[in-house]
Structures are given as structure tokens and as C-alpha cells.
């Protein structure tokens, strides 16, 4: 029997949650900061002249007032017709959002945007938001397929263990430490991989 579903295991959809990716990112260099910030944004409104991007969770270290007139790059995920596209532009204005202190709407000019960028922007904006959210939740909770790296660790661990056992019986006494080291290393590798797998499953269940 599986454990009953409770609220603790509910998927969380916020930009900080692991596994959640955005279709649109804003790359910006905040004033006084040396590091570029990559901010996940949603396309809120789109007109021929400009686009309004919704910033759900502005990091505390970034002052939104300082973003106006800052140069920024809008990165768009592949839309099925074209690969990733980007546009270098400037933040024209900002407005406080309704969802809390870190929720903002940022306006951008699209004068410099080419046809491909506009088409990608329109395609991403036109995606039904409910289905889009459904897939984002899905990405967040779906189990990741086992990678070859994981299998290799198992094979290496198993090989070391079996090799150690074989050496234990085959080699004379003064080579026994080598056999024991191999057995120990193999066992630790397998145990570590099992623990990692268990921890990952547990964190997935907890959302």
C-alpha cells in the first residue's frame, strides 16, 4: 500500500523549486553587481511595440528601481519552430505586481526585435497557461530516468567487490590487504549509490 497523499507532498510551482524551468529568461546586470542575473520571467502582455514580462520572484539583492534603462537580454526557449532566440534591449519601465513584494511587471521595447524573435515570443505567449503549468508540475515531480553514470557506479562497485573476493582466494597472504581494499571500496560504492537513490526517491515523494 502506498502512503496516503497529503499536503506535504504537493508539488510546488515556484521559480525556486528544483526542476522548474521557464520558457523565458531575463539576463541583466544589476547596478552595483558584477555578476549577471538570470531571472525566470513569464510573458504577461504582448503588443506590436513592446512586451510586458512578469517577474514573480525578484531576488532581494536587486533593486527594481535601478533596473530602468538598464540593458538586458531576453532569452526565449525553443518554440518548436526555431531554436533559442534572444533580444538585447532595455528595461523601459517597471510596475509593482499584485502577488506580493517581490512580484513585478517589467516593460520592454520591441523595436529592435526581428521576425524570428517576435514569432517565438508570440508562440510562447499563446501557449495555454493551464497546460503549460501542468507540464511544469509534471517536470517537477516526474522521476528522472536512470543515467548511464549511475549504472557505471553499480558495475564498478560490483566489479571491485567481486575482484576483491577473487583476489582474496587467489593471492598469497601478503597481498590480502589489496583484496580487502577492493572489497571495501566495492561495497562502499554500492552502498553509497543505494543511499543516494533512496534519498532522491524520498525527496521526490516530499515534492
Amino acid at each position: 500500500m502506498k502512503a496516503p497523499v497529503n499536503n506535504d507532498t504537493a508539488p510546488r510551482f515556484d521559480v525556486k523549486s528544483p526542476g522548474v524551468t521557464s520558457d523565458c529568461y531575463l539576463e541583466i546586470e544589476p547596478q552595483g553587481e558584477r555578476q549577471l542575473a538570470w531571472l525566470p520571467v513569464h510573458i504577461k502582455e504582448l503588443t506590436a511595440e513592446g512586451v510586458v514580462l512578469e517577474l514573480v520572484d525578484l531576488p532581494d539583492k536587486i533593486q527594481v528601481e535601478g533596473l530602468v534603462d538598464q540593458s538586458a537580454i531576453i532569452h526565449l526557449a525553443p518554440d518548436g519552430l526555431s531554436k533559442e532566440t534572444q533580444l538585447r534591449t532595455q528595461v523601459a519601465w517597471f510596475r509593482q505586481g499584485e502577488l506580493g513584494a517581490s512580484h513585478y511587471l517589467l516593460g520592454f521595447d520591441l523595436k529592435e526585435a526581428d521576425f524570428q524573435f517576435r514569432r517565438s515570443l508570440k508562440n510562447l505567449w499563446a501557449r495555454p497557461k493551464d497546460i503549460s503549468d501542468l507540464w511544469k508540475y509534471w517536470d517537477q515531480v516526474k522521476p528522472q530516468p536512470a543515467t548511464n553514470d549511475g549504472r557505471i557506479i553499480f558495475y564498478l562497485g560490483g566489479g571491485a567487490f567481486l575482484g576483491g573476493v577473487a583476489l582474496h582466494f587467489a593471492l598469497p597472504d601478503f597481498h590480502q590487504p589489496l583484496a580487502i581494499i577492493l572489497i571495501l571500496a566495492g561495497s562502499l560504492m554500492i552502498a553509497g549509490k543505494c543511499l543516494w537513490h533512496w534519498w532522491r526517491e524520498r525527496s521526490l515523494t516530499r515534492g
Partner: protein
Amino acid sequence: MAVIKKLWSIGGGKGGIGKSVFTLGLGISLSRMGKKIILVDADLGGANLHTLMGVRFPPCTLEDFLLNRVDRLEDIVIETQVEGIGLICGADDILGSANPTYAQKVRILQQIEDLPADLVLLDLGAGTSYNILDFFNYSQGRICVMTNQATSLQNVYGFIKSALYRQISREFAKDHEVLSLVLQTETIPSEGKIESVKELLLQLQVGGEERLNRFSQLLQDFDLFLLVNMVKEDPDLQAARIIAKVCESFLSVVPKVLGHLSYDPAIEQAVNQMVPFPLNRDSSPAALDLKEIAQIVLAHCYKQMDPGQKISEKGLSFLARLQSAAAKMT
């Protein structure tokens, strides 16, 4: 105590997710609790509930009733090998071919509801045809079966959305403004598009309190349950949480999670042997799950839920705010 929810529909949009197996299992589990159950195979065009029940050649089917070969629906209920369970076998998609009006469908459903049983379980087919949606919406108890597969999530959400919009379209059939707002959500997005029922409610706020109240009531009454089938691991259960969350955000309805049915090879064996599951397999994991689910279903049959419990507090406060705003305007 009178039964408040007698008619239960089992749908889910997608085929092959175990709706019929679940309907049968739930029926058997309920009958073991002393309830008289009638199963109706409403999977018209793909009827096989009788096969799962071990009946190879049904002596009569829904077709006999739909083509007026019998007067009463009761006359086509066949006795089964499971004590306390009657079965109405499905027919070819004669209902779809006949294209009945809504009123005709309601008459059929009323007869189904009047069948001599404590509970009637309606096994719906796949898809989102109007007939399926109307049968689903008419039922007092609605269960959506799903699996953790991506396609099932997509289909079950589409099914719930279609059912809700069908209900809104029927309820507001003469209100052109509401209909045009509802239809707008289905068109290619444009500036100022409506993407959620919440946004629809905000638009309706302008139309006055009476209409807003009707709409809010419809949402409150649209309660449904989710059941995750073929669960192998704990993360599989997240499928229901995803649907509940998206429904809450975009449809302003919060499906309750009824439970889950573990993946159980005993089910496959029972299907292949044409032995009704969980007959003679009482200790299998899926049989235990069914027992638990049957108890929850029974609890809901006899207990009228407080309407306030049917939507989340967040949704409720949103509706309450809207209603109070509309009241101030009028």
C-alpha cells in the same frame, strides 16, 4: 438514512486506464458492505464490463431499452455471480448515432437513478463527447480515474475542463454574454484573453450579483474525486496533486483525492480468467485499496458535504470577495 449521492459516474477521458476494472471492483467492495449495487456500462461503443464480470453473451443490453424493446430500464438488469450486484450491459454507440437531445438524456439518466439499488455506478467510455460529459455531470458522485502517465494527466485535465465548460454552457445556455466569455477561453489567445475561470468570474462581476452567485454556486456544486490507478511507487501519487493544483488555479474547482489503486498483477489474471476482481482475491493489494475507497465513497453517499468544504479556502475567499464586491455595486 437516505442516500444523498446515489448515482456515481466513473470517467477520465483516456481509454485503457482501468475505468471498468475500477467500477467493477468498487461495486463488489460496496456490495460486500451490504449495499445493493447496479453497474451500468455506459461505455457505448466499447462496452466490456460484462466480460470483466464473466458474462460472455449478455442476454439484453442498453440497446434494448434505447430502441424501446423493453419498457423499463429495470427489465434489462441482469443478475450476476456476485451477490448484491446487478448489471446493465452496454451497447454499441447507438446513443451517439441517435444524437439525443439533452432532455432525452436526462430522461434516461432519471430512469437509471430510479433503479432499485442503493447505489448505481456508471462506467463511462473514453473521450469527451457531449453524451459522456452530460452523463458525468448529471451524476451526484463523479470520479475521474487516471494513471501517472503523462498522457493520462493531459486527458483527465481535458476531461474535467470539458465537463465544467459543458456544465457552464448548459447552465447559462440563454446568457449570451457568459457563453461568449466561455468560448473566448477556447480561442487563440489575443490581448486581454481569459485564461481561467477566476478571470471569467471577474468579468461576470460587472454583470451583477445574481449571475455571479449562480456561477459561484455552479463551481461549488461541481465537486469531483480523483483516483490514481496502477500505482507502483509513491511518486505516482503526485499525478493527482498536479491535476488538483491546475484545476484549482485555472478552473476554480478543487478535486478531492479519493485514493489510489495499487498496480496488482492479480487484476490482470482476473481479467484474463474472466473472474470479477476482487472476487477470491481479498488480500491482494488492489483489493485492500478498493475496500478503503469503498468506505470513503459510502461516507460521501450518506453525508452531505458542507458547500464551503468543496472549494479551497483561497477559492472561497476569492468568491466571497467577488460576491461582496458585486453586492456593493448593485
